[in-house]
């Protein structure tokens, strides 16, 4: 997922201002009350009042039993928002986290992302985009509870304090639950004072997850676990080649199978509906479909790579330029030239894609539709479903379940897995859960784009680069989506060049130029954990390592020479190097590689220790340092760094989607392998103490592990690997 720096600065100030405005409109429902959950859902689902776009009541629900329910506007997909966001609210609400219940919020304007304006989870943004908003919500609720207690006891508010779910005044004590009804009748405070960071008791404290018990006992509900009355399960036969269309199909054999109920055609293919998954899958396998394959049948990644290489030699759209890089390179006696390549990648979340759609065909216009799925994109999915069904978006109720991994795949501007399920329900008139097989997922497109990066640099006498040119070739993720207007500027998709056009070394290089080619193909592409950085982090941090060696400098010292001493990159770099013991003697055959990279507002450095035996790369240890600004939950930051490293390492060592004759050559975890326990390095995570601007954590750990490992492989063997996945042959 992406992050647009200009946009988020503006949005943060807007959200704060609008929030306070919302506080002034007490009559629109800034009320702490004992709503039934259904009532709360209805209240929250009202279209936003222009003057009150954020409604704190949408987030907090206090019941008479003193339990606090927090409605989470973000999707929990492993990244820990189920815990860290309630921590943010609890800090100001002064309630005991142990008494907090968390639920995913419905899709409603009140839950819009403060920077992106729609309800979504992605771009490693959740904590910072809601930090002020939700602390304010918590503080307002607390202030009203305190007022209610003060009135009840006829004491000045200043004599009352809120603590762990109670308001206390001298020897008097009342629980939030007791006070909720009275508080609900009070006007909302116009303004609340937030705690100083030095007074935080919840934020910054290592806190265990609130979803653990459900997830270790099998009771956590994922989309694939949803069961509705009279629900059928569908498996879809989709195009074997991108862009192929159904010419005709024969459902005879499928319909003859026990448990198969119906077969319907939908825009994406042919859906078989069964009483259970197994019947639907057997039915799908028994379908005979004649496809018009079209031009997609000629696709091959080998030919695409050739085309990319040719394009890299031609002028592209300019993403960043200073001085005259071409002239400086021409004038230099000697240049360092390298092509880097990264493949298409599937996200392969552990939970295969799925979506359940329920509506009564005769009552659609009056009763609307219910959708149960693990999505990162609630309101875009809602709008897409409404469009297909011919109803209003607010008539589509999105029930977000836990997500069995997202990594960007469940944030699709084209809403593929949701719209398909809506089509199957519409065509069949049945309540249906569409389930993808692992093969469907690996073949299903929306891949991380394949990229080629041509690098060229010249060094001065002191070894520092004097000219740098980076030409990037790869499909645009943003083109053809509603984000294009915002995120494609002068022909440059900002997500294609993030991490390259703003590489931290460029300021120290007088002549530099970053160009972009965005070829098109029938292959669908999407953001994959860390988006453009998953390419540019590898390229820039490998190439800078090449320059260090060409200049005969230590890779750490070379980076330190080029980065401003006070920069956040330097802080992360120095901490990782120190904790690793950079320069210390390693075990025989082991070598270390280093990388530093900013993404999603966080600054991360990693040192990898590897050995290469029989052409096999083994990663033994990774030391990671992150400066993400103020930390809400250190346990989450640690977990997300470990997670980003494992995800990136799977891709660095193994991940590759290739095409031959239009067909994807991989199909399941045997040929699209992920890192396993036996390959897990020891990972140490160190957090840079920081009061700088808050960044994200979900993605920034991913881009650096490939270059750190590739740089270590070079140090160990003298062989420079410029192509992912890293292979010694």
């Amino acid at each position: 997922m992406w992050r647009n720096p200009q946009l988020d600065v503006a949005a943060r100030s807007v959200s704060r201002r609008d929030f306070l405005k919302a506080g002034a409109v007490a009559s629109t429902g800034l009320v702490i009350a004992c709503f039934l959950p259904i009532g709360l859902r209805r209240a929250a689902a009202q279209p936003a009042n222009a003057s009150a776009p954020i409604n704190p009541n949408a987030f907090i629900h206090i019941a008479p039993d003193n339990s606090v329910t927090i409605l989470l506007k973000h999707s929990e997909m492993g990244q820990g928002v189920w815990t860290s966001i309630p921590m943010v609210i609890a800090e100001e609400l002064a309630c005991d986290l142990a008494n907090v219940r968390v639920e995913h919020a419905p899709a409603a304007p009140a839950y819009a992302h403060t920077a992106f304006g729609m309800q979504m989870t992605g771009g490693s943004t959740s904590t910072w985009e809601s930090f002020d908003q939700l602390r304010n919500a918590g503080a307002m609720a607390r202030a009203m509870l305190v007022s209610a207690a003060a009135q009840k006891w006829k004491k000045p508010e200043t004599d009352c304090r809120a603590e762990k779910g109670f308001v206390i005044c001298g020897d008097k004590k009342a629980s939030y639950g007791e006070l909720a009804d009275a508080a609900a009748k009070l006007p909302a405070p116009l303004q609340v004072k937030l705690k100083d960071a030095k007074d935080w008791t919840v934020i910054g404290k290592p806190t265990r997850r609130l979803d653990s018990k459900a997830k270790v006992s099998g009771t956590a509900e994922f989309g694939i676990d949803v069961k509705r009355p009279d629900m059928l399960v569908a498996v879809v036969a989709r195009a074997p080649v991108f862009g192929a269309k159904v010419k005709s199909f024969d459902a005879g054999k499928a319909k003859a199978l026990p448990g198969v109920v119906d077969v319907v055609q939908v825009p994406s293919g042919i859906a078989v509906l069964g009483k259970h998954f197994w019947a639907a899958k057997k039915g799908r396998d028994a379908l005979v479909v004649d496809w018009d394959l079209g031009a997609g049948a000629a696709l091959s990644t080998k030919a695409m790579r050739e085309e990319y290489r040719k394009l890299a030699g031609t002028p592209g759209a300019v993403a960043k330029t200073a001085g005259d890089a071409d002239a400086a390179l021409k004038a230099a006696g000697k240049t360092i030239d390298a092509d880097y390549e990264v493949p298409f990648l599937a996200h392969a979340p552990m939970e295969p894609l799925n979506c359940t759609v329920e509506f009564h065909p005769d009552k659609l216009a009056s009763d609307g539709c219910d959708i149960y799925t693990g999505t990162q994109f609630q309101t875009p999915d809602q709008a897409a479903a409404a469009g297909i069904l011919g109803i209003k978006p607010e008539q589509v109720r999105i029930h977000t379940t836990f997500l069995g991994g997202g990594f960007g795949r469940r944030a699709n501007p084209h809403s593929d897995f949701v719209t398909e399920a809506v089509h199957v329900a519409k065509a069949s008139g049945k309540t249906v859960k569409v389930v993808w097989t692992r093969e469907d997922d690996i073949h299903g497109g929306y891949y991380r784009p394949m990229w080629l990066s041509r690098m060229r640099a010249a060094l001065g006498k002191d070894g520092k680069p004097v000219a740098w040119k980076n030409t990037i070739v790869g499909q645009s993720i943003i083109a053809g989506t509603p984000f294009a207007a915002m995120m494609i500027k002068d022909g440059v998709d900002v997500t294609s060049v993030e991490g390259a056009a703003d590489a931290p070394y460029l300021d120290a290089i007088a002549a530099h130029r970053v160009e972009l080619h965005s070829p098109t193909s029938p292959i669908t592409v999407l953001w994959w954990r860390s988006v453009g950085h998953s390419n540019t982090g590898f390229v820039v941090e490998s190439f800078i390592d090449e320059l260090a060696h060409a200049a005969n400098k230590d890779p750490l010292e070379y980076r330190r020479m080029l980065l401003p001493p006070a920069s956040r990159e330097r802080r992360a770099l120095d901490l990782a190097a120190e904790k690793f013991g950079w320069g210390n003697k390693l075990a025989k055959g082991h070598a270390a590689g280093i990388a530093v990279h900013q993404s999603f507002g966080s600054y991360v450095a990693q040192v990898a220790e590897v050995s290469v035996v029989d052409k096999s790369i083994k990663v033994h240890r990774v030391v990671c340092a992150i400066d993400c600004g103020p930390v809400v939950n250190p346990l989450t930051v640690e977990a997300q760094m470990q997670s980003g490293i494992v995800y990136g390492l799977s891709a660095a060592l193994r991940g590759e989607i290739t095409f031959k004759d239009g067909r994807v050559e991989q199909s399941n975890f045997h040929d699209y392998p992920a890192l396993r326990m036996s390959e897990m390095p020891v990972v140490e995570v160190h957090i840079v103490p920081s009061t700088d601007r808050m960044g994200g954590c979900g993605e920034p750990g991913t881009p650096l592990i490939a270059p750190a490992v590739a740089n270590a492989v070079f140090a160990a063997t003298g062989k420079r690997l410029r192509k992912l996945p890293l292979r010694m042959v």
Partner: protein
Amino acid sequence: MKLDINGQQHEVDVPADMPLLWVLRDVVGLTGTKFGCGAAQCGACTVHIDGAPMMSCSIPAAAMEGKKITTIEGLSADASHAVQRAWIEADVVQCGYCQSGQVMAAAALLAHNPKPTDADIDAAMSGNLCRCGTYQRIRGAVHRASELLAAESTAEVGHVA
């Protein structure tokens, strides 16, 4: 066919080739056991068959008649098994989708090897994929569960004495 699941007899009418996983999930309604690959590649569907860890996506339910099937729902009633407690203590889970299988694999390991080494853990747990990358905390949690189990058995011995 008749299946013994978590100590209860279930009479189910399903196709003979239907994998145990789908009988558990779609017929019996025990959805704690997860579908990840359908090809015995990821371990999300791990259950115990007569105490041994097996991938339920790749064994026909019909072959399980007469055997004791234990799913995550049957491991404990309230997440009180030592492995589950250790998982919570070590803050292992992320998305959580693979964790039913991870917990079942670890419980089976500890049942026959109460004090596993890192190498034992690698060998026993490498069939269980986690895309979130919880492996390091899993490793720590297996060791912790080993301690908890040892404490439990000491307590039991003490109680009997």
